[in-house]
């Protein structure tokens, strides 16, 4: 028991604990000795396993991201090459997922199409989180007039049906990848603002924040060093769920022909093509693959977000 020696050393060298009443000192020592089996802090964290499903979900998201990143290095057919000798071909060795009504390789199209969904989904939420999250943190902590106005503004934006607004703006402004990203990031700002603000507000008057103030910490320091670490779990898990939402909205826009211009593949575009010209009856694979990929991706992202929240949420019971 090396810890006992250290304890004894503390007693002797400091002389602080010497005149303690033995009976009362025993209480803390009991607690200490129970915890002291290992003093390595990380071993003490009770690690609830994340579960097989979490790793499966993470694996799926990882696979999609990896394929999207290294698509150019893979031996894939050109996603826009129309092979008229293999129209509406079923899955085969040459075309693993088959081809569409113009003879384009569906595997290639689905992989290249994932780039649009992933970029729009993650970039829009990142931008939205930086702006909405920062505003939410500050307004939740500071309160006052700024909070009132920002909150009212967020409510107005939330009350407006986002998809209608996005369609209207896209129709007038145009629909390149970066414009879609900007528009969707603006659309998620009020959502993320509300969630982060609520979380920030719940910590703003906690004792440890007041304690930090009495130690002379400035507001900026309190917001970013005391409150932010507590808000992150909620923000990350909600952010992930928002990513899933944004991917769906991008798909919706693409389905309506309002996302990236054809023939650039995106999941929404491919789904849309699979539904037109009677393709659904002739070749359901066109729609099946992107729908399946998107469905599993959204499920995985939601599951990851949820599990992360469970894992990192500091509950009162633990305090």
């Amino acid at each position, binding site marked *: 028991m090396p*810890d006992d020696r*250290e*304890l004894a050393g*503390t007693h002797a060298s*400091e002389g*602080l*604990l010497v*005149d*303690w*009443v033995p*009976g*009362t*000192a025993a*209480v*803390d*020592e009991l*607690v*200490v000795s129970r*915890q*002291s089996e290992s*003093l*390595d*802090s990380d071993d*003490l*964290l009770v690690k609830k396993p994340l579960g097989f499903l979490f790793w499966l979900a993470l694996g799926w998201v990882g696979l999609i991201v990896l394929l999207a990143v290294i698509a150019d290095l893979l031996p894939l057919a050109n996603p826009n090459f129309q092979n008229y000798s293999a129209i509406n071909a079923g899955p085969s060795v040459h075309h693993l997922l088959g081809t569409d009504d113009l003879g384009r390789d569906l595997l290639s199209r689905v992989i290249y199409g994932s780039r649009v969904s992933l970029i729009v989904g993650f970039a829009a939420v990142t931008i939205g989180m930086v702006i909405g999250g920062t505003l939410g943190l500050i307004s939740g902590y500071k309160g*006052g007039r700024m909070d009132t106005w920002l909150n009212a503004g967020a409510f107005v934006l939330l009350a407006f049906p986002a998809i209608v607004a996005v369609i209207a703006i896209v129709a007038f402004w145009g629909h390149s990848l970066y414009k879609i990203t900007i528009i969707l990031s603006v659309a998620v700002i009020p959502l993320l603002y509300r969630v982060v603000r609520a979380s920030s507000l719940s910590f703003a008057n*906690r*004792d*440890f924040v*007041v*304690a*930090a*103030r*009495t*130690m*002379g*910490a*400035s507001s900026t*320091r309190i917001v970013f*060093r*005391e409150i932010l*670490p*507590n808000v992150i779990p909620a923000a990350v898990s909600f952010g992930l769920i928002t990513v899933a939402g944004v991917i769906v909205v991008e798909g919706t826009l693409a389905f309506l022909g309002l996302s990236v211009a054809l023939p650039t593949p995106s999941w929404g575009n491919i789904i849309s093509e699979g539904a037109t010209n009677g393709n659904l009856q002739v070749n359901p694979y066109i729609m099946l693959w992107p729908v399946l990929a998107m469905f599993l991706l959204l499920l995985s992202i939601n599951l990851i977000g949820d599990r992360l929240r469970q894992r990192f949420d*500091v509950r009162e019971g*633990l*305090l």
Partner: protein
Amino acid sequence: MTALHRAKRGRGTLEFADIGQAHDEPLLKVEDLHTWFRTSRGTVKAVDGVSLSVDRGQTLGIVGESGSGKTVLSRSIMGLLPAQDVVRSGTVHFAGHELTAMKPDELRQVWGAELSMIFQDPMTALNPVKRIGRQVTESLRLHLDIDRAEATATAIELFRSVGIPSPEQRVRWYPFQLSGGMRQRVMIAIALACAPRLVMADEPTTGLDVTVQAQILDLLGELQRERHMAVILVTHDLGVVASRADEIVVMYAGRIVEQAPTRTLFSDTHMPYTRALMDSIPRLADPSGVRLHAIAGRPPDMIHPPKGCRFAPRCPYVQDKCREIEPPLRTAGSADHLFACWFPLVNGVPTAPTDHAGAGVPPTPVPSTPVPGPAADTAINPDAEIQSP
């Protein structure tokens, strides 16, 4: 510690007078402090004209029931009040500076460095997602001009001095891994990190197990002597301050009702409220089944405090005069014993009303624990007005 002091001087724009060495000015001098909260129901006069002073290295106990204004008083002295709907008047003079006149960024140089606070509940006063070592080093690095490694070494030293075993490993722990007593030790380490001159301890042991309470208070006392810092100990428990405070202030309804050196307060209680507080301390020696003493009634509504003496509605010795005219804080006999009562207790017996028809007759009811003693009004001079402290 002297090294810390030197480093601290090197940073910040405020200069702090070395009180207590050059001249006899008290470290903290509060004069006529009022703290009112505006609410939709009316103005709550939580602190209503409090004056007190604390010398360097001294311990002042502030005692009172819940709602007597003691916590608001301590926060008001610090300047730690909500920005809106609060009226604060009076002066708080601390180490050569007027705290009430300070801007927020000036106040931040005082907080933590010269004046810090220990919180009631160590469960909530530590940030749950930050390692405890980090929580200490952050405030160290905020006020002292030291690098990360030096701050960590100082934090380990601090943890050792507050009796945390194996501090080298414990700095990497999170609050939830520690027991309540250990967490309060961490809180004390944080509060004392920058060697402040005055520490406000707002019910520092209320959230703790009784067995740990004594340890924490002893630790605080020891560190206080070692570092020669002043402590304001706010508590509802007279037992807690009895052996640890040099002077005790008893608050009721936002005002000081009795103030005396600890020994005097206990041996020669003048104010029936203080007496009632003492009687409410449960005694282990009492046979089981004995009813505990409680003060009848509740603290008054602070929006409409009662006319006359604020304790009158609950006082067992109340007289007509008490209900009409508010007694001033005055002295009798010794100059450092202040009380606000028209008919102060002497040896547990209320003095006879001097301006009343039935003079000399002890009012009813008889106090619960009558102590036979010399005739009342010998040491009392009811007309002596309050002397400025």
